[in-house]
């Protein structure tokens, strides 16, 4: 389960849907470098495709992404996608890497 913690995305695991264990590291919290995707990620959806998984989320256009040409840029939000990785048991999403997306067809 992934929730919008407003400090990145919280990751929880459960084997019975009753008892949940939170992952210490939130997803998409650390500011990164790619324009439009440098602030924390918000409210997401996850699509699993075969042995890969993709996380769709949104970001505010504030901070380093503040666009002075647009009125109220900080209120503007855009959608992003990144591939999820399981790194030594920790769910991560490196949004600085190009996302090769293939959700397949169901």
């Amino acid at each position: 389960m992934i929730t919008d913690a407003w400090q990145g995305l919280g990751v929880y695991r459960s084997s019975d849907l009753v008892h949940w264990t939170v992952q210490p590291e939130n997803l998409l919290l650390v500011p990164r470098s790619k324009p439009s995707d440098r602030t924390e990620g918000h409210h997401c959806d996850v699509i699993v495709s075969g042995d890969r998984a993709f996380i769709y989320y949104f970001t505010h256009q504030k901070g380093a992404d503040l666009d002075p040409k647009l009125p109220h840029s900080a209120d503007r939000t855009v959608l992003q996608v990144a591939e999820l990785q399981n790194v030594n048991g920790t769910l991560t999403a490196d949004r600085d890497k190009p996302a090769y997306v293939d959700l397949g067809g169901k």
Partner: protein
Amino acid sequence: MNIQSTPHFKARRYTRLSPAVSARCQCSHLSAPSPRARRSSSGEAFIALNHINFSTNLSSGNFGRSQAPVLPVSCSSRCGTVSSLRDRMNLLHVLPFTPRTKGPAFIAVLFALVALLLCPTRLWAQGATPKGTVAPKPLFRDPIHDGAADPTLIWNRARHEWWMFYTNRRADLATDDPKDVAWMHGTRIGVAVSKDQGATWKYRGVANIIYGKSDFTLWAPDIVYWHDQYHMFLVIVPERSKTGTPRVRLSTSPAPISKSGPTFPRSKSAQTVSSTRRSTNSRTAAGASGTRMSGTTATSTTPIAPISCNGRRRALPSPIAAAKRRRSSVGRVSTG
């Protein structure tokens, strides 16, 4: 997409469900919907999802790259220089391709492009480059209000496309007053469609979800496919202000349709309310290979006239026109 009064589906109320919980397992048979709505006896109306084609015979249909053919050996040998070609293509992602470039480099790039066209994408999975198409960054901006948020994706089984629904925050209406949250309210649900397995998206319009007053706030949809039906969870704020109490509504699509192709739930009145830019009335996706599903008994039907989100009428797509001709004595086309 069309909204039509129909008595067919159930709507239940969930008050403890958090819409922010958006992680979910991917169902194996997802399909995007055409929302429909009805009004209950109490005057409430709910969205439902319609026009679903079911086909469990995956081998009979073209379902994109997941069904990509295995690469013939001959093609592998023919593309033996693919590693270097792939490196060149990686460069193309960084360096803009300019036709003014001439000479050997230009020819090599052309050769790389031709080689890429000849080789199925499965070849790339054998190397370091992951399968798929590089998604742009940002992936999607709402072209109207520039406030796309809370995305949820669903596989449209009828159209063989990935569809995305999102909160259509009207960021273009934000004011200098930080306490003015009107732009965050009265929001619709935006729709975008991908034809390349989720890598790039095009704006499709907004889903006109009829619930209460027209300016009710709609937030954070989530759609799942379960037991042959679509289910949409949606946050609704009855008042267009921050004092309204948000509610979560669950709306469920009508019963699955039969193998004979798209049909429509019974309707006593053909009150088409609105739609997105394009009609989502589906083609006969399952066709002759479609699998019969239980409970597919929609018989008395009313064709729905698609109307553009801008109020422009569109011609009836052929399945709808055919349905209209077949059933001209049964239903009447609404005028919206």
